């Protein structure tokens, strides 16, 4: 009934406008005023949906700043999935056994799929994939800083699955409740696929931590190096985070950077103990009062440098992406010409 009422209202409204304009009774000013009023109504409607924990869907009205904010966050996430294939991909041909190789290959394939889900979901906001890729390659769009570190030993591959995918899972679970519908639904799907990533990494690192003394040393070294950049994945402290407060208000982000980081630390410390390795941060200590682990301060200077392009592998990652993209041009070319040929054939048979 509600539907019909609005329909009738709309039709009536349009007829009245039409009538008035025919008699010249409606000045442009009145139309403008109506347009303004409807913007305010749309905004109020949008904000009500957010307040009521409703999802925003692609066909819904949304403020331009919301659209931009979600595009920024989703495309950054998509780029991270794609660039994130590189550090692990480096070990595909050097995995220590056929089993480990098959597992790693499968994980890296999953990440390509995650990139695809996310690029497609971002396109619902009116941007296309070529534009997003151009922004990645020009440095205008960012990706997770963690992928600008090298993978020096096989133990790094285990530590990445456990810690980097582990940190991503903590973040992605909170994003299952993000306010943009297509983003929330892609997070549900991705989280289901992520749990194998973390478990295979932990299993690989556990094997090394319980291997020869040299293997154990490699595991410790990987933990020490990858721990800090993993904590940085959650972004700056809440007080210093540029986009955070608006993102939280619009429920694009659901849990703050510092809270997410704390829960990652709390879940990881007992896992380090089970590995039998030393803590990567001497200041890690249980705080009975807070009910959380205390830990040392992150090197924010390093974070800034890596985000702004001066990390150990930034140049290499983007260069590799550009090369792969160029080398893949013949595939896109073939797809385009197949499409054209097929359309031509169908036209011929139709005629």
């Amino acid at each position, binding site marked *: 009934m509600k*539907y019909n009422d609005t329909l009738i209202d709309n039709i009536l409204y349009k007829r009245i406008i039409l009538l008035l304009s025919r008699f010249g009774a409606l000045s442009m000013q009145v139309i403008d005023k109506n347009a303004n009023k409807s913007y305010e109504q749309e905004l109020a409607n949008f904000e009500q*949906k957010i307040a009521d924990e*409703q*999802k925003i*869907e692609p*066909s819904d009205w949304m403020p331009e700043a919301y659209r931009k904010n979600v595009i920024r966050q989703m495309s950054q996430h998509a780029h991270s999935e794609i660039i994130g294939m590189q550090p692990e991909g480096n070990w595909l041909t050097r995995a220590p056994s056929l*089993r480990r190789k*098959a*597992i790693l290959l*499968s994980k890296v394939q999953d990440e390509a799929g995650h990139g695809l889900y996310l690029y497609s979901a971002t396109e619902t906001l009116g941007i296309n994939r070529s534009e997003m890729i151009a922004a990645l390659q020009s440095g205008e769009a960012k990706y997770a800083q963690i992928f600008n570190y090298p993978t020096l030993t096989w133990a790094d591959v285990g530590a990445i699955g456990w810690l980097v995918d*582990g940190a991503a899972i903590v973040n992605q679970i909170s994003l299952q409740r993000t306010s943009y*519908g297509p983003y*929330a*639904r892609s997070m549900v799907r991705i989280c289901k696929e992520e*749990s*194998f990533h*973390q*478990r*295979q990494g*932990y*299993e690989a690192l*556990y094997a090394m931590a319980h291997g020869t003394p040299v293997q154990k040393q490699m595991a410790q070294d990987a933990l020490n190096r990858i721990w800090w950049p993993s904590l940085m994945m959650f972004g700056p402290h809440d007080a210093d985070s540029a986009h955070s407060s608006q993102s939280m208000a619009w429920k694009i982000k659901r849990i703050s950077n510092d809270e997410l980081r704390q829960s990652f630390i709390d*879940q990881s410390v*007992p*896992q380090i103990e*089970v590995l039998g390795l030393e803590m990567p941060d001497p200041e890690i200590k249980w705080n009975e009062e807070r009910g959380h682990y205390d830990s040392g301060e992150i090197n924010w200077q390093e974070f800034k440098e890596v985000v702004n392009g001066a990390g150990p592998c930034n140049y290499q990652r983007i260069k590799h992406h550009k090369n792969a993209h160029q080398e893949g041009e013949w595939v896109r070319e073939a797809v385009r010409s197949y499409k054209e040929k097929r359309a031509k054939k169908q036209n011929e048979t139709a005629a």
Partner: protein
Amino acid sequence: MKQEQLAIYEVFIRSNRGLDHKHVGSLHAESPEHALMYARDCYIRRSEGVSIWVVESTNITASEESDIENFVDPMDDKPYRHATHYVLPDSIKNM
């Protein structure tokens, strides 16, 4: 015009905001716009949905169920794609 000559449309309904659209059935219609109205009149008579999609059936490309074994590898030889494949110490919880 005979009823059979009208195109068949598949109807998808989002039962609640935030959920995926799910296939609920089909109907005949003379245009996508009419299909949408018919779907409204048939399929959400008891507020079953907040959004409707209609797609002309011929626009759907589908796999053949009889051929699914040749088309989709069940990947039974790749148990490592499942989280349960990895045996971790009992003290590791929630991973």
